[in-house]
């Protein structure tokens, strides 16, 4: 009878693990299918940490199940020792073993946190591309200051090039900017700049989205992040520059009003220093810059 339960239980666990593996193997599992150097390093870190934890978790599970099996279910030939104690050595092991694992993990954490600091520029021979990101309610504005263009809800980046994002928000609460396959998240906040560096390995289209609740249009605040070759990127810039839309101060004011907009707009010209003005708007409340 007990054996039957045990086998059923084991089967269920195995089926569960296979199910999990199938889900994670699918390309839809974005975090485990990274396409950029930062996301890849993070995945490495995640794998290392999980393995380290398993060193201690797996034996504990085995110990737990064998104790449950022997003392709760089978109950044959067990020794009852109401005053059993494991003594000083046992105590030392109990505090010591997890401590060793945690010390190892702490060192790894310190190193990786510094290595994967989102503010740290990536090493590369290619000059980084600067993209200024403004989180609006409920759309994403991307400004390419060096190219003098801007896009709404559409991010194009050249492959194998470090991208330096500078982020802020306007007329919006805190937002979080996330392209899972390229890098981790960073918040964007009004009156402040946060930074994020990432680099895509090759061409591809990745999902980006807002990950911090900010109201009605929150769920739809997604954008495609398209990584393309340098040649295509230059072509794309030219294409944007032909767009009839301009982003002047007044246009921006209209755009910054809260409304749901999932359409893509290209702006061939952008107000000078728009990004700085958006931030400064929150610095000088008495003399609005915008």
């Amino acid at each position, binding site marked *: 009878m007990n054996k039957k339960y045990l086998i059923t239980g084991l089967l269920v666990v195995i089926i569960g693990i296979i199910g999990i593996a199938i889900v994670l193997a699918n390309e839809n599992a974005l975090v485990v299918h990274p396409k950029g150097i930062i996301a890849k390093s993070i995945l490495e870190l995640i794998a290392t940490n999980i393995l380290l934890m398993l060193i201690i978790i797996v034996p*504990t599970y085995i110990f737990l199940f064998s104790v*449950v099996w022997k003392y709760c279910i089978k109950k044959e030939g067990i020794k009852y020792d109401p005053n059993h104690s494991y003594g000083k050595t046992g105590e030392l092991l*109990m505090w010591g073993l997890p401590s060793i694992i945690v010390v190892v993990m702490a060192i790894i954490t310190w190193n990786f946190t510094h290595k994967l600091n989102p503010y740290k520029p990536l090493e590369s021979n290619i000059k980084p591309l600067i993209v200024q990101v403004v989180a609006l309610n409920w759309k994403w504005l991307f400004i390419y200051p060096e190219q003098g263009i801007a896009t709404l809800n559409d991010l194009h980046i050249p492959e194998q090039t470090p991208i330096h994002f500078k982020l802020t928000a306007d007329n919006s609460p805190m937002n979080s900017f996330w392209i899972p396959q390229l890098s981790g998240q960073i*918040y964007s906040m009004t009156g402040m700049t946060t930074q994020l560096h990432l680099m895509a390995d090759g061409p591809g289209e990745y*999902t980006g989205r807002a990950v911090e609740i900010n109201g009605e249009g929150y769920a739809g605040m997604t954008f495609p992040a398209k990584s393309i070759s340098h040649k295509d990127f230059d072509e794309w810039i030219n294409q944007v520059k032909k767009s009839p839309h301009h982003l002047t101060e007044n246009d921006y004011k209209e755009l910054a009003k809260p409304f749901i907009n999932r359409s893509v707009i290209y702006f061939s010209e952008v107000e000078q220093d728009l990004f700085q003005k958006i931030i400064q708007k929150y610095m000088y409340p008495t003399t609005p810059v915008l």
Partner: protein
Amino acid sequence: MKTFFLGKLTSDAIPHVWYTIGGTIFIIIMAIAIVAYLTITKRWSWIWNEWLTSTDPKKIGTMYMIFSSVMFFRGMLDAGMVWLQQSIAADSQGYLTADHFQQIFTSHGDIMVFFVTMGFFFGLMNWIVPLQIGARDLAFPFLNSLGLWLTVSGGILINFFFIIGGDFANTGWLAIAPFSELEFNPSVGVDYLIWSLQLSGLGSLLAGINFLVTIIKKRAPGMTLMRMPLFTWNSLCAMVLIISAFPVLTATTLLLWLDRTFGMHFFTTDYAGNQMMYWNLIWMWGHPEVYILVIPAFGMFSEIVSTFSQKSTSGYISMVWAAIAITTLSYLVWLHHFFVMGAGPTVNSFFGIVTMLIAIPAGVQVFNWVLTMYRGKIHLASPMYWFIGFLIIFMIGGMAGVFMASPPADFQVHNSLFLVAHFHTMIVGVALFGIFAGITFWFPKIFGFKLSERLDKRAFWFWFVGFFVAFTPLYLLGFMGAPRRIDHYDSSTGWQPLYITSMIGYLLILSGIATQVYLIIDSIRNRKLYRDTTGDPWNGRTLEWATHSPPPFYNFAIVPPITCHEPFWDIKERKLQPEKHYKDIECFKNTGMGIYISIFAFIAGFAIVWHVIWLIIVGLIGIIACIIALSFDDEMEYILPAEEIAKIEKSYGQGELWKKQVM
């Protein structure tokens, strides 16, 4: 003049959408049903004298639990609505608007944390802590009653938007600023949230102070700190957390309210408000808060595993220090809730590493729990099912926790469903499983009969399997890049099958809850069958088992001798017999003041939400008048004479108390 009398109230506040109309009708029908029942059975004076005004911690504990159970149904309803929406909202809006969806998960979070988990724990502590330390009552019986009724008034206020207002906060359970500021949230929903948390937070703070003083000052002679049972120890730790953390919540939400009401700029986006400050403050309270939810459960499981293994808890001293270590560390980790805010790598690593340190005492606890079973004589009763289920789940949750403690890893799962799965693992698998185990374990002590073992085990299997079916998909969805709190998504993401699987898990859990409801009804019906006459149904080890079941209102006629941390086991080992020499006992009278003050507090809270100035004045004056009236009441205690105690003890008709148990 109109603003003086009506404040912000307009005719729009009257229910006019399906869920507020439905909610209002449901609340009114329930109220009418209760009133009718009490009137027909002529129980008004009974319920007032025996229950509502009681200062007996066992009755207050029961009332906490009844209240929390009611709120639990509300919270589960919210959860079901969230799950249903997310299962069907691929490429469509589903059946809820974004705003309504956001209100539902906000109230789900607040209700489950403040009114369900904390309410159940306060209930269990009221039941057991005084008994475990050999005390006859809490240090401040009146405050205990007041704490309960303030919590209840907070619970009513959080549901009151159904009747007046129709709008709840859509900000997430922490009312995160600046999203909760007027700029983004002009309706009264956030004010309802703030003031229901103010009321219940005050209730929790009072209860926290009360239990801390009780545990420090009211222990029976001989019970030193290192002889306290582990549940009492863990409760003590949780109370220290409450006392030091809850004022932060009160202050933070008050600042938010000042922003919203008087146009101040603590957390606004403009005029130098600092939104990041709100996050720091709210999590300085919030992280200790989540430990308040799990630490008492650790204590309960320690009691349960040692009782049912017929063995002393392995490593008692280590267990105490582990609890203290977790308590202390929980103050130093709040920043791990927002690693992605852009604090430097050094700050992030510090908080990440401190978070990982918590795994050490947690690991020590796990080893000791398993070792307690080792070489034990285990009685596999239903609380042990919950315990073993908890251990299996807790290790997964702990692993997910340490996983996220690493800042770069957190960048990839922050605010994703992975996080949601992690904290539900902890709150369902640890806190709720602990509550269910604790209720099953101590139910016979408080009511004099056991719960049905068979049904409780069935409920366990529903919960256990349901838990995995519901939350494993959420972990996976986190890896698939699914953020929390979204009301719809594109089907190309491939999330829908997992959302639906998760929904099936919810239905399994719901079946578990239905089983539990049936379990209570069935056990009450068959209470003669399940009766416990010994006062010690599980062969217990600590003092709560050394008195009758249910215990008389004074708990112990004679306080038993205490020589070790398992005094009752010791009494049984040495076959001691209680003295027959009763002494007079000072008892606390019933008082309705807790209810009166809470009613006025509710009125004030409601009026502040709507800016009804005259009603605010009424509420505040009422509270002050009640406190003044209370201060003139010199006779709050009375002496219960020894003869009376002898009579009551005799009426239990069990002969000598410990004799039966010692055999």
